[in-house]
């Protein structure tokens, strides 16, 4: 029996304990990682798939359903992946704008003096948030957009035609039963964009609602007693203060939207993920394709974060 005043054994000494714990953890993680990597190397060598990037220059051999960049099957893989990335960026940027506008409208609607409008805003958020996005995307594509009429039955508005063959903008003409216009968006793009905007708007609406609710009620009352109209109060007095809470919240929603755009494959849109999947199936280069995919999404996330942090710096309270 040792006396109570004896120093604790070395493995409970406060000076060594942290290093002991970290050493054990580092050893465990290191062993696991080394085990996985050695297997990876062994397996890849056995199949002749060691890390190499030269296949990026080989002709892709598949065509893309849509691409802004000129593309055909004879162009190399990296051009296909680039076209996919551009398609992803296109839908992400359009989605950010759409989801912000719709989300702000719905978020502010929950402060309307009209009870029905308030209720509807609440119902919208509760319904959309509790249904999986993938299910919504499939619904928009197969049930709504693929059921659109074609030819002369298409939905026609001045300067705009919505048909099963796509959305046509800028004076569409019907040539031999096929719509043609300077600007065409495919229904795949339309379904993906609609789904993403409707889904993300529900989350954005909650962020906006939380932001506006964070502004003390006295601000509204003071503005109204000074004679400001409700909309002017919202725009000039409440929103600038609410933005301090809203912008950080929107940041994470925007990143979610960028990541969610990878579900494009469910409605047949050729985004980065969908092109990568085809590339992998053709080349078998799983590790390289994976690295490209993860890297691209990481860069998109970082860019969004950086932009939003810049915006955050602009709206934060300047305290002298």
């Amino acid at each position, binding site marked *: 029996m040792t006396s109570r005043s004896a120093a604790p054994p070395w493995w409970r000494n406060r000076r060594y304990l942290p290093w002991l714990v970290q050493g054990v953890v580092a050893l465990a993680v290191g062993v696991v990682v080394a085990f996985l990597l050695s297997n990876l190397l062994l397996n890849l060598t056995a199949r002749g798939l060691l890390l190499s990037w030269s296949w990026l220059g080989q002709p892709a051999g598949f065509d893309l359903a849509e691409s802004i960049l000129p593309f055909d099957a004879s162009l190399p893989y990296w051009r296909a992946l680039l076209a996919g990335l551009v398609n992803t960026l296109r839908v992400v940027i359009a989605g950010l704008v759409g989801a912000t506008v719709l989300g702000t409208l719905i978020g502010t609607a929950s402060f*309307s*003096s009209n009870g029905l409008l308030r209720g509807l805003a609440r119902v919208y958020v509760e319904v959309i948030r*509790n249904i999986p996005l*993938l299910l919504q995307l499939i*619904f928009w594509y197969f*049930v709504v957009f693929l059921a659109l009429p074609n030819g002369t039955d298409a939905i026609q508005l001045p300067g705009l035609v919505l048909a099963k063959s796509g959305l046509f903008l800028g004076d569409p003409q019907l040539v031999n039963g096929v719509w043609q216009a300077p600007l065409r968006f495919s229904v795949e793009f339309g379904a993906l964009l609609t789904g993403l905007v409707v889904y993300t708007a529900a989350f954005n609406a909650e962020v906006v609602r939380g932001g506006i609710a964070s502004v003390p009620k006295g601000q509204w009352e003071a503005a109204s007693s000074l004679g400001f109209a409700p909309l002017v109060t919202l725009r000039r007095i409440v929103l600038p203060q609410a933005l301090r809470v809203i912008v950080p919240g929107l940041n994470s929603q925007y990143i979610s939207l960028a990541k969610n755009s990878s579900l494009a494959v469910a409605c047949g849109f050729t985004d980065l*993920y969908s092109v990568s999947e085809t590339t992998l199936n053709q080349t078998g280069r799983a590790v390289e394709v*994976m690295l490209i995919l993860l890297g691209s*999404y990481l860069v998109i996330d970082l860019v969004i974060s950086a932009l939003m942090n810049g915006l955050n710096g602009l709206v934060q309270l300047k305290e002298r």
Partner: protein
Amino acid sequence: MAPAPPATLRPGPWQWLRRELFGSRLDGLISIALLGFLLAAALGLAKWAIFQAQWTVISANSTLFAVGRYPLEQQWRLWLLTTLLALATGLSWGLLRALPRSGSSGPPPILWPRNDRWAAAILVLLALWRPLALQLTLAIQLRWWAITALLLLARWAAGRWGQALPPLVRRLIPLIWPLLYLVGMVLISGGLGLVQVAPSDWGGLLLTLLMATFAILLCFPLGVLLALGRRSTLPLLRWGSLLYIEFIRGAPLITLLFLGQNILGFLLPGGLAPDRVWRAAWVLTFFAAAYVAEAVRSGLAAVPAGQLEAARSLGLSMPFALIHVVLPQAMRVALPATVGQFITLLQDTTLLSLIGLLDLLGTARTVMANPAFLGRNAEVYLVLAVLFWCCCAALGLGSRALETRLNPNLAPSR
């Protein structure tokens, strides 16, 4: 009892409607436009649901949607599991309902809705209506009724005699849930004398629920560990957790599932890689753990540093102080966000259909590929949406009830 508010301040339903919908001229116009829109939408939906929709696509495939291609002669195992689940639910429900209410001054326990008779009524209505709506055969209908009756019987019996049980037995009763989970796994997958059913034969709601519960149960402890690591003072733990969390959160789930399906085989020695279904389950778990970690971290941040310091200075060891002092307080704050992540996880199981597994959505897609049901997209996806909505909304409601229950300012004191 507070005195009733003056009658004049309480508008009647008519005045209330007038104030809410027709407060000003603009409000009136908006209300009329919205009412017209709602009426048109409701009429259109009703017309479609009654005259155009062909709901046989649901009833003809109800088994497929429920359990996928689970072998018919082994389905008794799933019935047995459902019966056990109903018994356990009834037992827990009855016991919780009969918990002694604290003195008449405190508010009643809120965790189990005061009007849990309503919950029972809804359950009975659903049990009566659902088999009819699905046009199940009489034998299966009878089974559902019997299971519902058993649940209600267990609830009644537990409420009647539960309090008479010795305290030790009552404390052991929550253990039936983990036990039931293990029994359920054996019943579903086979082993211990039962015929093996390969995971590739699981499908539909069975696969969705199995994946979701598996990932939820495992991602939670992982997430708590990661959150503790993220806030640790040991640089290696902190940076390791940070790296992991940010890596997972930076990647879309679909790319990680894709990684699981295509690269896990390379990372493990030949033959050791798990089945496709289990690979997906582990990816879901590790994915959700990073998000749960962030939710728990926000809870940990809300606990004053003095709590840990006080616990340590009282002589509690670090793990003991964390488990008994810091985490209980942190979890109370982190609860809504954590349950929010669980709801997201349940929704994320639909992504399994993109890597070729037959979860609910995957099953729906195979049904759509059957020429007999061509063009019945709307019916199937609408039913799935309602199903997911009910599950997620119920989880959300439960979380809110639990939050109120755990709030020290509202909960009855012992």
